[in-house]
């Protein structure tokens, strides 16, 4: 019982990181139907930004988190404007290859500029471990969970309550019709990238704090897993992405806990394939009927 509770907590903290990342994938996919392969690398940039502002400028955690979000939002908007906007009307596979190119560029550019070494993330917040009913909960885990949930709530409010959010939803349903009612397509897409990248930046700082180590290639695997999470939840659906992230996080820790850590990624992919076969559009995805 205690182990289950312990693993539940570990899984939820890991899952909230995946959920934050998956939100970026799902929003970008929902609006321009692009698997943004560079998203995991934006998360890496967020972690590095946090590392530098904390080490060089000695700011506190909140400032580091917020500045990383702003920085990543800017990076996301710039990437979209330079690399993806010229390809909006090209075959989708072309845009996908470009996204892979951007991902390679960010990974190798960072390795070139700052060396590929793994470095320790500064511990701005002293880790305190609470013992509660036989379980160990660190304040970092609580912080990750609370921050992630808060950010997801804010995101949900932006999408559901603001004018820009309404524009985003309109563009994702039908870009042409959205333009006809006076929505600026470019602004809306840029805003989507900014939101998604800000979430990834926050996830980067949080994971730095949690795992204590960062390197230029850290975004690759979590990026792919977060995308899997978005697909499981139903790509294009915001609550689906959060749910998918938590499912993947819990699944991974559960498989690790029963001693099969070598197979933890395989289990994630098996679940992915099974869910896709049963629910081809994911858990919350809309199943669009095909018309002739």
């Amino acid at each position: 019982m205690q182990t289950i509770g312990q693993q539940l907590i570990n899984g939820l903290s890991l899952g909230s990181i995946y959920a934050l990342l998956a939100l970026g994938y799902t929003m970008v996919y929902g609006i321009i139907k692009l698997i943004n392969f560079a998203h995991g690398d934006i998360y890496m940039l967020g972690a590095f930004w946090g590392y530098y502002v904390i080490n060089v400028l000695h700011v506190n955690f909140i400032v580091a988190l917020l500045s990383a979000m702003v920085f990543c939002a800017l990076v996301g908007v710039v990437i979209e404007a330079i690399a993806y906007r010229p390809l909006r009307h090209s075959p989708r596979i072309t845009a996908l290859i470009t996204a892979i190119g951007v991902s390679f560029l960010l990974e190798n550019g960072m390795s070139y500029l700052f060396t590929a070494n793994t470095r320790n993330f500064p511990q701005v917040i002293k880790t305190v471990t609470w013992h509660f009913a036989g379980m160990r909960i660190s304040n970092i885990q609580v912080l990750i969970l609370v921050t992630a949930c808060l950010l997801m709530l804010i995101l949900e409010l932006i999408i559901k309550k603001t004018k820009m959010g309404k524009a985003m939803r309109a563009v994702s349903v039908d870009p042409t019709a959205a333009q006809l009612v006076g929505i600026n397509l470019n602004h809306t897409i840029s805003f989507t990238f900014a939101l998604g990248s800000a979430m990834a930046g926050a996830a980067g700082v949080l994971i730095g704090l949690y795992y204590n180590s960062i390197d230029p290639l850290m975004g690759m695997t979590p990026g792919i897993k977060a995308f899997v999470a978005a697909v499981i939840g139903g790509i294009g659906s915001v609550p689906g992405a959060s749910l998918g992230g938590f499912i993947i996080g819990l699944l991974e820790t559960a498989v690790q806990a029963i001693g099969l850590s070598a197979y933890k990624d395989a289990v994630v992919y098996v679940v992915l394939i099974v869910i896709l076969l049963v629910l081809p559009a994911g858990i919350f995805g809309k199943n669009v009927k095909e018309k002739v």
Partner: protein
Amino acid sequence: MKTTLKANAVWLGVMILGFVVIDAAEFAGLVNTFIENMLVTIGINVILATGLNLIIGFSGQFSLGHAGFMAIGAYATGIITQSIATPLGFYLSMIVGIFVAIIAALIVGIPTLRLRGDYLAIATMGAAEIIRILINNLKITNGAAGLFNIPALASWATVYTIMCVTTIVTVNFIHSRGGRAVMSVREDEIAAEAMGINTTRWKLAAFVFGAATAAIGGSLHAAYIQTIAPSDFNIMASIAILIIVVLGGVGSITGTFVAAIVLGALDTILQNFGTLRMIIYSLALILIMIFKPTGLLGNWELSFKRLNHHKEVSAHE
């Protein structure tokens, strides 16, 4: 039928000419080990990318799991030739690899080919990762360390010959009745179904065909490089093959050849740049995609049959 035979004969001539040219260059000492390595890599990449192009470009199914099937071929060769270190053992291992890859492709393909577009891509990527993780944890494959000291049973000539054979077979499949059925599925699945084409069957046929060629490529890779590890066949390896297909032009076999040669040469030239190599590579990739979104050749195809046809038409006029 006659024109097909004629076109095949012309292609055979071109291939023999290519062989003679490389052989002469080797004899004259123009090809050092460095360049030979590049040529073999290009050859293996052509085999892999032609198979993937059949799946993506001709049947229109987006597969991201090519490296998984390549791994099956590579490990079949690695394991079998360590006990039977003869050319016969090599070809036997290649056949075993093809068989296992076909079975794996059927297991993966029958359920997942119902999915569409990006969902299929992500499912095939997951399947390839499952194959890789299994190899990573099995005893017979020596786990994460991989296999080394695999007997060197593939020379550049073997790779060249097999590349020619797989290309001829693939192109002839594309131009056959089955190939047209596969392409009709790409153009419009519902219309194809209405015309009485069993879409699932032809999608699966293209997928299995592609998996078999990937296994051949993997066998050659193992026998030439002589060292294989599970990490050689990760998602990035699948993406590297995908890049060749898209760069050359989805649905153009000629484009696949051009892209494999361009990327192979680029890679060799960039070796001198050290760490800057991947940065230049990724920038080149982004720029080519932005300025030439359909790939280098689009869906243009070099065809002697068509050239011949043009000549005949003008002669009649």
